[in-house]
């Protein structure tokens, strides 16, 4: 079980609990604004872009090369950017805070 907090562009804070699947799927199921997950999680659309809180970067790990290439050409990308379809929910993610990029 992991508690994951999303902060949307209009500063709404939403904390959700998940046990499995991707963080993107959890956000889409709960209508988190700004996370669309159009491609269903295969890293082809960048509609699930988040900025991981600096202190949580250790928990999420680093993006793969394919993900980085995708992020490189997206708007609002910074060193904390991740596509959350690539974040698999495990206990390790408990407590992380994600700022929705869009």
């Amino acid at each position: 079980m992991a508690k994951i907090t999303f902060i949307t562009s209009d500063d709404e804070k939403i904390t959700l609990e998940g046990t499995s699947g991707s963080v993107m799927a959890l956000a889409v199921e709960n209508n988190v604004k700004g996370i669309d997950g159009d491609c269903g999680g295969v890293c082809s659309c960048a509609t699930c872009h988040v900025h991981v809180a600096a202190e949580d970067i250790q928990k999420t790990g680093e993006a793969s090369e394919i993900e980085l290439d995708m992020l490189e050409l997206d708007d609002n990308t910074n060193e904390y950017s991740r596509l959350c379809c690539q974040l698999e929910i495990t206990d390790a993610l408990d407590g992380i805070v994600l700022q929705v990029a869009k």
Partner: protein
Amino acid sequence: MKKSELPDPFKNAREETGIGKMNDQNDPVAMFLRHKDVRKGAHNWKTFQSGAIPGRIVVPSEVNIRDLRQIPFEVDPPQHADYRAIIEPWFRRPLEEPYTKKLSEIITTAIDEALTQESVEVVNTFALPLQSRALTVLLNSPYSESETWISWGTHVFRSEGDPLDGDKAEVLYTYLDEKIEEAIKNPSGDLYSKLVESEFEGRKLTKDEIKGIMVLTFAGGRDTVINTVTNSIAYFAEHPESLQQIKENPEIINSAVEELIRYFSPLTQMGRVVTQDTQVCEHAAKADTRISLCWASANRDEAVFKNPNEVILDRKMNPHVGFGFSHHNCLGATHARQLMRILLKTLAEKVSSIDIIDFEENIEDLDQFKRKVGFHKINVKFNSKNN
């Protein structure tokens, strides 16, 4: 070679030079073939513009058959974003439940009917009606309108033997003029009415702008959807185990759809006009010449995709560009994805196997390359799970 296979004609050129050459009505096109170059080119709208004279970014060029600008497709930022903002929410309706329910009814009816027939010509009597009926849901138009659209045939601009048939475009334009006038007089809940009441930069959209959006909606989602549906039927005919795989693991449907879109790449390429002298893969791209972003080649790039010529329905990482890339990515993608997801689910539930009887391939002539995009016709027999 399997009948459902779509070979990759770009491999050698992609690996050797990264650029393909195509002469198109004396306005040549330098085709970007590598995944990285295609994505960067799509992203770099300042150097590779869409807002050129109408029809020039399309390959083959439509400059000689139309003056009307398709919107937001032939507009660059920042106006592009303003146009897109008007219609984006409408094109995300496919995520709503009543919408998917209607699509599901259309698809179920089509498959049930196909199952009763001895043979079905998929392009004209399955995919085209399915595409047209599904489009009534996207436009929120009466179902009966689909009969008119079906009667237009498989391509709104092209007709058999003549890729640039201006008369055919005229049929669509006249139809749209009537529909726009009707929406002005008697607004309803359809897309025309939505556009009539919409504002751009503090004023109402002009009739030509509305028409430009509608032409794009009709043209962009016609042969692309028809080819995707038809190619999927051919693929499942030769891979009945894949239908079984989907039936047993419905959670793979989303990735299966993305993989089919990657493999089929229903739109081979889209052009841009170069605004300033530049260089790509040692190719000097001069200002006011054309380049194209070859989605079909990028989607088979070995540098990005393992076993790119294989369909792997549960492919996990799939950064394909089948719906284009960056700000001009396909507006109808949400609709197309939902249609395909429901199609796969329904086929897996109802169909045990599909037999290909005969077929005629549709090969695009791209000058240096010949690319199979699908079929002109393919007769099949659908076999029910209940037999």
